[in-house]
């Protein structure tokens, strides 16, 4: 009468008279399938908790009266199981017949599992009349709901509630009235559904399908690739017909296990948007560059004329060459992109360093985790994550600070939510309460700008209460005394009024973090995008070091990477002060090594960073740029400043998919390729190097980015001969030792390999720093952080704090997602999130136009109530060009990471009455 114990050894049992074995934990259904016996099943799906409700998989177990659901039953030694006995077969068939009788004959999918099994078991036309079924629901832009094909197997519900933990799908009513509902029986489109589509992927009968009958078209081919959006790095499959993506399905990748989010699953048709650039464009002569962007991306013919590739490339490279030859390489700069592949990043930085002759090459990492990386390199010698997201399953305590993971790393967030559901302590710290807080044991809504106060108070508690890991501190770290002195004045009681968190709560969380068998810290831009971003990260590192919560599974530090390849682009050397693999350009020995590899002499001076490059342009020190896939005219702080700089350039080459806000300042625009149009490797937040495969040909004359970089290189006098992506990768592998064991052919067969990986048979190191840290002496360093304030504090004139960030549906500056039909349908207009009481105090209502002004600019957008904010906080997503949040933000920099303070500036808010009229 007790639960069947999972034995560690295989169990042997008789399956239809044949002796077979079941692996530990394997059910009868799984074991049978492994031995070639397919038992009918509908409510069972790999990866979902077996529920045993459909009863199509029942088998007869000798000596038991009831039939057993084989999907839930673990075989016992010697058990005799009959899968096709008369009684079992009869029951299986009756279930299929009853279910078949309920569903309509209309086909919503090419692969109904119910029909497949009914055919296999030779079920005739059912003897039963159908039950009354709900009406079709076409309210969601991405998902067609046809519950007349529903068999109540609840796979969608488990996918929604247990896998993705979105808790939208429910099961209402009972008996034969039972039905799937969204929220409280709302249409799906007006429910709280986040459109991840996990339910669609789970549905066996087509009751939930991609909209517009995309699932009814037979694809020409399927191509296994990687998601083009965030750093989680979900593996996916493109279903392609006639050079068009029909649909996207999640693949069992190590970071996603089949899961995707709304962007990855439904945000793919930007690549066929009419705005897509298909021919090179050259700026018409005499058209001035203005900071007011007025170009219509649909028809830029007032400003640009079409050109042949030859002409465009000659013009693009020629302009840069002229500046280089006349004013020197330091007058040039390049922005690479964290959206491009490792190979593109590598070649781009090589082009700038060897072709331009400067280290002025940077990319958006400067705007996201530059401060984290500085702190990590200084403290523990490596900027990459110490542990992978998957480690949440092994942790006991998980802190997520300054990260809206549910929207920005949605699939990673699902694993955090799974962990919380499994009873782990999830601590969410953020001035803005986001969805993840709903699942947290502790939610600490501290005052913006007070991270250091909160974190130092935690350290104070850990030291005061004797919870430090003395042995770890002594053997593996240096500088603990500095921290001890530093946090002495940061008792939780003293910090309570500063950060707004009750002292006892700070103490409880500190104790929990310090004493758990494994504690992880995840963080995002909320930590890094401050002028004290480096200090914030230093505190997190110190917390992990003083408690020894690093170097083991289920512990560690994980700055969640934003872009799909920000880790890889940084590894590949798109950083002004570092060659590939973080080798400092000012190190003589390093430089000689790269000079040998690349066969040219290299600039020994560190280059300029993103914001510094803009300053240099305005200072007349820099005159030409090559920008590949970045959009500083939207993403930089204080856009007027950035746009003035871009407008001032003598020569700007932009390589992109669309005529972005940055491209509006270009002298020449080179039409490039989207991720599904190329092959390349991308390194996710977990240090997994993953292979994307080309699924489509680029449209019109658009070309592969690697080709374009090489054409530019040739015209700048470099003799490059890379025949394919693999050749670039293999050269890069010589420059990055941690990729030593990850050959191109290995990636082709394995799709995803974690670095560091030293040899071909090395599985890769998911957990690093187990024995030592990659510092010069192997020892980690504590670096104390003092409490400093944001550069611009609210005052009577600008009383609100502006926090910028992202939305689930939109990616960064919106260049891709605002052109993805589904995503733009869900979030079509710029919004300003405001606390309901603030809105009332302003005499405004949700949907009113609000004008937000800072000392630098002013925008107008629609008010959205957000009770997750604190009073006097405003949140604005920065993806809307018509209300660009970065017109307002402050370009003040963190002194170490040179990262701008996107997360804090002072603004004033008013209801815009004139626009309403």
């Amino acid at each position, binding site marked *: *009468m007790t639960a069947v114990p999972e034995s560690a050894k295989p169990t042997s049992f008789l399956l239809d008279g044949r002796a077979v074995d079941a692996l530990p934990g394997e059910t009868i259904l799984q074991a049978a399938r492994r031995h070639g016996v397919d038992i009918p099943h509908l409510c069972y799906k790999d990866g979902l908790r077996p529920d*045993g*409700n459909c009863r199509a998989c029942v088998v007869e177990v000798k000596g038991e009266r009831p039939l057993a*659901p084989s999907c839930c039953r673990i075989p016992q030694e010697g058990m005799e199981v009959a899968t096709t006995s008369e009684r079992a077969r009869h029951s299986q068939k009756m279930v299929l017949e*009853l279910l078949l*009788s309920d569903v309509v004959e209309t086909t919503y999918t090419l692969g109904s599992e119910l029909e497949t099994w009914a055919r296999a078991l030779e079920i005739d036309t059912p003897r039963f*009349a159908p039950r009354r079924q709900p009406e079709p629901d076409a309210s969601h832009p991405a998902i067609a709901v046809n519950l007349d094909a529903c068999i109540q197997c609840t796979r969608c519900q488990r996918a929604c509630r247990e896998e993705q933990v979105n808790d939208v799908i429910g099961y209402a009513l*009972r008996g034969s*009235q039972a039905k799937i509902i969204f929220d409280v029986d709302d249409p799906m489109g007006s429910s709280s559904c986040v459109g991840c589509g996990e339910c669609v992927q789970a549905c066996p009968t087509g009751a939930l399908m991609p909209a517009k009958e995309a699932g009814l078209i037979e694809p020409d081919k399927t191509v296994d690739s990687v998601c083009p959006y965030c750093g989680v790095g979900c593996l996916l499959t493109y279903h392609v017909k006639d050079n068009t993506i029909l649909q996207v399905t999640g693949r069992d990748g190590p970071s996603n296990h089949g899961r995707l989010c709304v962007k990855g699953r439904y945000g793919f048709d930007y690549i066929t948007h009419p705005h897509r650039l298909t021919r090179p464009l050259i700026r018409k002569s005499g058209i001035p560059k203005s900071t007011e962007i007025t170009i219509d991306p649909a028809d830029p013919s007032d400003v640009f004329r079409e050109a042949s590739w030859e002409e465009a490339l000659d013009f693009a490279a020629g302009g840069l060459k002229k500046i280089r030859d006349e004013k020197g390489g330091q007058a040039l700069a390049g922005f690479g992109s964290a959206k491009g592949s490792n190979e593109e990043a590598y070649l781009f930085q090589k082009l700038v360093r060897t072709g331009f002759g400067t280290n002025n090459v940077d990319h958006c990492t400067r705007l996201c985790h530059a401060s984290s990386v500085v702190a990590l390199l200084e403290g523990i010698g490596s900027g990459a994550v110490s542990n992978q997201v998957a480690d949440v399953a092994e942790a006991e305590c998980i802190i997520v600070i300054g990260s809206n993971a549910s929207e920005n790393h949605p699939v990673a967030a699902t694993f955090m939510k799974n962990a919380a559901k499994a009873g782990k302590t999830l601590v969410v710290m953020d001035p803005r309460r986001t969805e993840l807080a709903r699942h947290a044991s502790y939610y600490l809504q501290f005052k913006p700008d007070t991270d250091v106060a909160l974190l130092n108070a935690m350290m104070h508690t850990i030291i005061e209460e004797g919870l430090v890991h003395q042995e770890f501190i002594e053997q593996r770290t240096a500088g603990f005394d500095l921290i001890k002195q530093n946090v002495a004045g940061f008792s939780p009681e003293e910090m309570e009024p500063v950060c707004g968190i009750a002292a006892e709560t700070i103490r409880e969380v500190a104790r929990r973090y310090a004493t758990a068998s494994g504690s992880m810290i995840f963080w995002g831009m909320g930590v890094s995008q401050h002028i004290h971003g480096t200090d914030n990260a230093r505190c997190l590192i110190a917390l992990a070091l003083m408690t020894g919560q690093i170097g083991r599974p289920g512990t560690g530090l994980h700055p969640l990477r934003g872009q799909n390849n920000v880790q890889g682009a940084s590894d590949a050397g798109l950083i002004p002060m570092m060659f590939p693999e973080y080798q400092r350009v000012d190190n003589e020995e390093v430089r000689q090594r790269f000079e040998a590899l690349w066969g040219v002499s290299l600039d020994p001076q560190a280059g300029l960073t993103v914001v510094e490059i803009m300053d240099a342009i305005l200072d007349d020190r820099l005159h030409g740029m090559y920008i590949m896939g970045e959009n500083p005219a939207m993403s930089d702080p204080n856009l007027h400043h950035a746009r003035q700089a871009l407008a001032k350039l003598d020569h700007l080459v932009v390589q992109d998919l669309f005529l972005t806000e940055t491209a509006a300042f270009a002298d020449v625009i080179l039409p490039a390729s989207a991720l599904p149009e190329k092959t390349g490797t991308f390194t996710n937040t977990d240090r997994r190097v993953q292979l994307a495969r080309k699924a489509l040909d680029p449209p019109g004359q658009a070309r592969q980015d690697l080709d374009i970089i090489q054409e530019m290189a040739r015209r700048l006098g470099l003799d490059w001969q890379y025949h394919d992506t693999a050749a670039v990768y293999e050269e890069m592998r010589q420059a990055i030792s941690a990729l030593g064991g990850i050959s191109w052919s290995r990636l082709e067969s394995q799709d995803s390999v974690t670095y560091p990986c030293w040899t071909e048979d090395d599985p890769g190191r998911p957990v690093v720093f187990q024995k030592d840290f990659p510092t010069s002496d192997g020892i980690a360093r504590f670096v104390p952080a003092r409490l400093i304030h944001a550069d611009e504090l609210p005052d009577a004139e600008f009383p609100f704090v502006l926090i910028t960030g992202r939305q689930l549906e939109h990616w960064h500056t919106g260049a891709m997602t605002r052109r993805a039909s589904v995503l733009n349908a869900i979030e079509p207009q710029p919004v300003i999130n405001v606390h309901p009481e603030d809105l009332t105090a302003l005499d405004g209502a949700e949907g009113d136009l609000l004008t937000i002004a800072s000392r630098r600019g002013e925008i107008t957008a629609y008010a959205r109530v957000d009770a997750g904010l604190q009073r006097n906080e405003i949140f604005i997503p920065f993806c809307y060009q018509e209300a660009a949040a970065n017109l307002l933000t402050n370009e003040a920099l963190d002194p170490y990471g040179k990262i701008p303070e996107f997360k804090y500036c002072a603004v004033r808010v008013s209801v815009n009455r004139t626009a309403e009229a």
Partner: protein
Amino acid sequence: MAENVLLRHEDVPDIHKLDVYLAHDGYAAARQALTTLKPEEVTAQVKESNLRGRGGAGFPAGVKWGFLPKDSDKPVYLCCNADESEPGTFKDRAIIEKNTHILLEGILITCYAINAHTAYIYIRGEFAYGAKCLEQALAEAYGQGLFGKDIFGSGFDLEVYVHRGAGAYICGEETGLIESLEGKRAYPRIKPPFPAVYGLFGCPTIVNNVETLACVPSIIKNGPDWFRSIGPESGPGPKIYGVSGHVEKPGMFELPMGMPLREVIYDYAGGIKDGKQLKAVMPAGSSFPVLTPDEIDVHMDFDSMRAIGAFLGTAGIIVMDEDTCMVRALEIVDRFYHHESCGQCSPCREGTGWLHKLLVRLEEGNGKAEDIDLIDRICTNMMGNTVCVLADAAAMPTQSYLTKFRDEFVAHVTEGGCPLKKAAVQPEAA
């Protein structure tokens, strides 16, 4: 039997009030257990008494308690199943409303025996009055220190909570009850693991019926031998028989286990109403096979009933006279299960619906000859093929009706409707 135990209010007015209950030896058994016996001694006495579960399954209560893991560091819970929803069953309600403290005392002793410090009384939502009775009685008892901290100075603590259900038969299934108590839909769980190992909030849990728990004080007070002397050895004790339907004196009768069904119907319930003939009896609520008049000499205890292919169930006896249409009767039974199927397992969700639809068709005279076999086949495929036994509870009576009254079902097909109805209508037409 000399004196009622379970229906003691029939002997002692106002026994539901604490002062009256205390004046009649109330909570003496609990005091005795908590202050003089070890928990395992209490369990041993209950085991020795052979008290079998009164919710319908007849599982020995002491043995069930013994399944609790010995080495668990998790809290143990007691759930009192007061979700009395079985058709024709109203025994627990009487105890709850009229003899409230005997239930509370049973809960106290049981919790002591199983080392539970929290008990939940899960009462069906419709029993609003019963819930009020429990709340009042609990308030009185808490006031006297009979619940709460350090009861009788024994150091034993117990908190009891009354939780009202929201109206579903499935909440009476023990794992459905647990899910519902956890705030979820009452979907029965796949077993094993059983609640004793993995119950409420994943902790070891005992679920006992009201009547079962109400028997416990008398076992402690009078000893297991006394209990075993009442009725058959294999399943002894006092028992409430509830009789409804076509009898002269419907109601509840506390009698020893193992009373002949005939005696209950004719001697206690006054026989068939208006001097008519008996046609059929559902002796165990609606979830078990129906009996014909030639089967009613059976003794009403767990084993005797099983011997003739029937069950004791809740001993809610539904009596039907000669004018009853068995197709219509079964249609009502299966309408109930169709309505109450939770919708989790497809054979039950779909099957109960189909049984009901086919019976409506037969009853209305639109049935086909093959429908009768189809009903039978659906039943065969429902039984033993679902997470809980609700499917069996629908299928078992259905198959017994078909077997024992097949002619009537056939007549509904051949005559295009109910022959009894036609017979009743004809004289008026004439």
